């Protein structure tokens, strides 16, 4: 492992030299990246059964290479990573983002692997229907790793009246959930001998479509959204509810419709967002394996309380439709979700010493689920190129099946270093 790390460091250093050389001719082609090393350790001593990391949740080095350039009106960007998992002793390649872009009059096209972020929420997503990597999020990787790219075509239209964005995604990407080998979580069917996953097939009729129209309206940045595709968190179907031999994870059909707005208010920023999740495979709510349709909404306010000290408060809610049908179809003994799930969250950020130090705290608490997430973090920029970061993920709750509560045995602390070139 040491030797492999040395190879990565050497690669990083060589590339850094090469990147220096390209500074002589900026613009044409830019070549940059970073080396990221991170370790996260569980502090509960409650190891997941059969896990491969023991008390380690994460231990890895990532060499990021970013190549960007353009020629003849077209541009391209490629961000790839060579990842060394020091726990599993494995190397992997992760192509995080890669596309070609071309502008035709008022339309910007992008084709390839795209990272798309919609909505105005802080870590709570309504109209951002794109895949997330929750394992990254709960193990302390930088926040950008929470977002996972989709493969598709994007067209952005700019007109004096409004802007619009259209996405076609032919192949489905699921959320990355914390893996059972590193995280304990709630999965009641872990004992079923056969485990299968059914992804939506890459057929033309299965192409996911997402659209957004936005403009400024009376001081508000207003967006309207629509999406037709699938839930990204799997549902589970058993071949036999009494003595199951196969548990199949599948992704039910979903459409969403929503709106968001954001504006300055009392020297801060006010955000609001709402959406309707139309669970197309179970509109009546009678199939207990498919999530019911639901309303989601959030409201947030963020303000700089004093120079370099910012506070943000957010309310998030989910309201299940056809709750009666859900309750009456639920098998005996299954955990019961509430009709309403509410989460209150607070983010504090303090920058110190000419912004070289960054202290942040994110706290989320759900009075309905009775669960919580606490994420303190401190980072320090040693130089322009080198930064270090440490923090913790503390999760828990009253019930082992709620979103944060299920990860209660995985409280962890992490340290990370990043070298940019």
């Amino acid at each position: 492992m040491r030797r492999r790390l040395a190879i990565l460091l050497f690669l990083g250093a060589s590339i850094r030299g090469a990147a220096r050389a390209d500074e002589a001719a900026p613009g044409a082609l830019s070549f940059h990246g970073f080396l990221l090393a991170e370790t996260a350790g569980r502090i509960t001593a409650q190891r997941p059964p059969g896990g491969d990391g023991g008390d380690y949740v994460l231990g890895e080095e990532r060499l990021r290479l970013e190549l960007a350039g353009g020629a003849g009106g077209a541009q391209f960007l490629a961000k790839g990573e060579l990842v060394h998992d020091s726990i599993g002793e494995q190397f992997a390649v992760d192509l995080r983002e890669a596309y070609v872009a071309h502008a035709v009059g008022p339309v910007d096209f992008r084709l390839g692997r795209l990272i798309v972020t919609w909505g105005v929420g802080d870590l709570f997503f309504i109209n951002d229907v794109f895949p997330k990597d929750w394992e990254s999020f709960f193990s302390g990787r930088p926040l950008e790793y929470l977002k996972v790219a989709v493969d598709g075509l994007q067209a952005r239209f700019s007109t004096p009246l409004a802007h619009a964005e259209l996405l076609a995604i032919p192949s489905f990407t699921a959320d990355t959930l914390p893996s059972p080998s590193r995280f304990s979580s709630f999965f009641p069917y872990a004992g079923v001998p056969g485990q299968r996953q059914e992804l939506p097939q890459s057929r033309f009729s299965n192409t996911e479509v997402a659209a957004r129209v936005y403009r400024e309206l009376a001081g508000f940045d207003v967006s309207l959204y629509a999406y037709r595709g699938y839930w990204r968190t799997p549902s589970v179907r058993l071949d036999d509810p009494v003595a199951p031999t196969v548990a199949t994870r599948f992704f039910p059909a979903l459409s969403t419709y929503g709106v968001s707005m954001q504006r300055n208010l009392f020297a801060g920023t006010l955000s609001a967002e709402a959406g309707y999740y139309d669970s197309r495979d179970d509109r009546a709510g009678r199939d207990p394996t498919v999530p019911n349709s639901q309303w989601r909404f959030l409201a947030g306010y963020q303000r700089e309380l004093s120079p370099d000290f910012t506070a943000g408060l957010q309310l998030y809610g989910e309201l299940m439709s056809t709750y009666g049908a859900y309750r009456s179809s639920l098998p005996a003994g299954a955990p019961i979700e509430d009709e309403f799930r509410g989460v209150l969250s607070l983010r504090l950020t303090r920058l110190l010493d000419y912004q070289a130090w960054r202290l942040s705290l994110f706290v989320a608490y759900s009075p309905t689920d009775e669960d919580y997430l606490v994420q303190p973090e401190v980072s320090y920029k040693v130089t322009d190129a080198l930064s270090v970061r440490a923090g913790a993920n503390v999760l828990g709750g009253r019930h082992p099946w709620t979103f944060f509560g299920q990860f209660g045995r995985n409280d962890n602390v992490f340290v990370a270093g990043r070298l940019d070139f």
Partner: protein
Amino acid sequence: MINRIWAAGWAVAVAVAGPAGAAPNATEIVEKSQQAFYYPGTDMRARVTMDLVTSSGQKRTRVLTMLRKNAAGGDQKYFMFFHEPGDVRRTSFLVWKHPERDDDRWIFIPAINAVRRIAASDSRSSFVGSDFSYEDVSGRDVSADVHALVREEKLGDAECYVVESKPTQPADYTRRVSWIDKATFLPLKEEYYDAQNQLSRLFTADAIEVVGQGGKKAYPTVVRRTMKNVKSGHATEVRFAGVAYNQGFGDDVFTERALQNPPTRWIQQ
């Protein structure tokens, strides 16, 4: 782009901005100074290098391209694209400055391809960790201070108005003394005093060049400036390179579309 700067422009500049008759009042001087410092031309482009230097000499550097366009009623639009350091590379800021109300500010975060509106509460807060505040970068509303002409004197070779400005609302300074060049109306030196009436920050214009555009109009421009925190010894030194005025940027450079698709024509200089 230094070749656009021509020494002969000095004469033109003096003719354009020079004093006419009796000394104007202090508010007029500050207004003219703001025009000369923050508003010259219809638009402006510069590659800005900021060195943040600690009292022990440790240096951090930010490099950005700044595009600015004037709009009606003292409004301005700014587009700032970061080249360095690596962790903020390709991050860009869009600011719609409104002198009479809160600015609109957006940031583009390249790692997640997201445009976010950011709170514009405290214009006195630090611009990207430097000794300059947002207001120092894009200008402070003239009516936010009460101005008095305290004397006229030479600073180096330049005849200056010395103007004292006191904030009407509590700020991080209680008194600012500015040496404003009578010829160009550029601020050559500014002293900021704290609540104990001690010198806390010091601004100096370290190099001024006259930037002309094809022999048309010429603009004296502060191409090197320093803001020093006198108490901590920390200082930020800023260099403007490739300064060009009246480039004819369209309004489309100052939109969310431009945040997502930076105008490479203007920033790759």
